[in-house]
């Protein structure tokens, strides 16, 4: 009896896996004698030393000051046309005027409101729509082509129409924001619904759960991270919607301020409005990021 048979005999019981005995290959591949053409190579682990925070901040401030200074210089010396490009000092002066005289706060508040309301409405409607697809596969299949079609329309192209329907006031700005955000939320939430762990659902059903219970305890918590992940995208879209609406027809808002300043060649004012808009955008982005991390902390483990 060869070694192989002996091995099989003595170890049949212990070696036996669920699929039957583990068979030794008839010919065990010989150990390779000839080395491979590519031998293992020693390398240093790539490590980058982190700069201290003060240094990074100082560096960033230097870059900012230098580019502003260069801009100022360029318009003074004549490398850039100050009529088209304006210059930092003029922009700063206009900024002061913008906030002291005129209705800066009205404009900011108008744009802010339009963006936030559009964001909230579009995101919640989209999330609800996406979640609703869990309830019936037939309904989801039925609705899908319409969603895809709506997705493929460049929504901003519809903006003039929306203004006609909703008027030049706040509601038309909100509507454009909703049109932009609702599809993103719907599609993302629907992806989340499709990725819900079917075994968790089955577990719930095996415990005698109703569909509503499965929805509340499995589907909703599973999809929530997906819904949250679109918040940051949507806040930007809602703001874009508000501004485009203001560009087309509006009595207030930062978008209108930019358009107006541009048409009257007040380039410094354009820059000021863009600057304020950026600040608004950053503030809203940070707010939503904060919201997102708070929500995620409660959702994801």
């Amino acid at each position, binding site marked *: 009896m060869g070694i192989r048979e002996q091995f*099989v005999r003595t170890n049949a*019981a212990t070696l036996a896996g669920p699929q039957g005995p583990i068979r030794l290959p008839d010919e065990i591949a010989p150990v390779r004698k000839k080395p491979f053409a590519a031998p293992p190579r020693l390398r240093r682990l790539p490590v980058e030393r982190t700069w201290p925070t003060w240094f990074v901040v100082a560096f960033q401030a230097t870059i900012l000051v230098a580019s502003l200074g260069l801009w100022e210089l360029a318009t003074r010396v004549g490398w850039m046309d100050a009529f088209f490009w304006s210059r930092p000092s003029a922009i700063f002066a206009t900024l002061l005027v913008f906030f002291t005289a005129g209705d800066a706060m009205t404009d900011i508040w108008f744009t802010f409101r339009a963006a936030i309301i559009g964001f909230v409405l579009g995101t919640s409607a989209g999330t609800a729509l996406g979640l609703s697809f869990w309830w019936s596969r037939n309904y989801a299949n039925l609705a899908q082509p319409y969603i895809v079609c709506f997705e493929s329309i460049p929504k901003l192209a519809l903006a003039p129409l929306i203004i006609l329907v909703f008027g030049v006031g706040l509601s038309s700005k909100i509507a454009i924001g909703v049109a932009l955000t609702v599809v993103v939320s719907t599609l993302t939430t629907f992806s989340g619904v499709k990725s819900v762990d079917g075994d*968790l659902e089955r577990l719930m*059903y095996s415990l*005698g*759960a109703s569909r509503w219970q499965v929805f509340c*305890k499995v589907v909703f918590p599973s999809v929530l991270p997906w819904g949250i992940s679109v918040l940051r995208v949507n806040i930007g879209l809602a703001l874009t919607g508000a501004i485009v609406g203001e560009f087309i027809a509006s009595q207030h808002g930062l978008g209108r301020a930019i358009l107006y300043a541009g048409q009257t060649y007040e380039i410094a004012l354009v820059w000021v409005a863009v600057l304020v808009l950026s600040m608004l955008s950053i503030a809203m982005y940070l707010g939503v990021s904060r919201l997102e991390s708070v929500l995620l902390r409660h959702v994801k*483990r």
Partner: protein
Amino acid sequence: MPISKIELSGVSQQFKKPDGTVFHALENVTIRVEAGKFISLIGPSGCGKSTIFNIIAGLQQPSRGAVIINSKDATGMVGGVGYMLQKDLLFPWRTVLDNIVLGLEVRGVSNREAREYALPFVHKYGLGGFEHAYPGALSGGMRQRAALLRTLLYDSEVILLDEPFGALDAQTRSRMQEWLLQIWHDFRKTVIFVTHDVEEAVYLSDDIYVMAARPGRVKARLEVPIARPRPREVMLERPFMLIKEECLKLLGQFEEHAEAA
């Protein structure tokens, strides 16, 4: 003949394969379990053990045959049995305690009441101090224990356990076996147990159903006439060995050895 607690009569299950042909996952499976018994299913991977469980739990409608629980037709009815699926399936966003009370919660027991009821079990079965941890922070054995507790606290008379100890080390495993026997004894549940470990099946069960694959079917039913309670030493004794060998033989593990010799 005593009335059976749970019965599968002539259950067949077919699946459509992607290429359009029909795959016979189960063929005419009949299993009868009396109340309070501990039954094991053993068989090669893919012979349809989990499918049988899904059918008993009502998660899958069999192509033919019926599931009868307490003399009533329960084919395709959910909620009648406690089922621990092959994966531990703890909800990652719920604490251990909240995972364990899930079954009670679904039935509408108030959260406070359910937790009060569950907490002593958590401590008794080695999860004390982890009741407010999330499953991500648990070891494999603890996760398994939590999933098992969830199944037990669902408080149905029949429980189905699909390889509950598959992922545990040998020591934890034998402790869990003792624990399971204790619980089974205390609560007088009817247990159907799936395992790949023949020794485990013999040690735990009253009856063993040995299955074969392609198509999935019951090959034999063995009784284990070893008195309870069973100290672990019974594993070294002759009756135990004989049954174990019989099982292994039925699983076809000695046949090939005979060819080789």
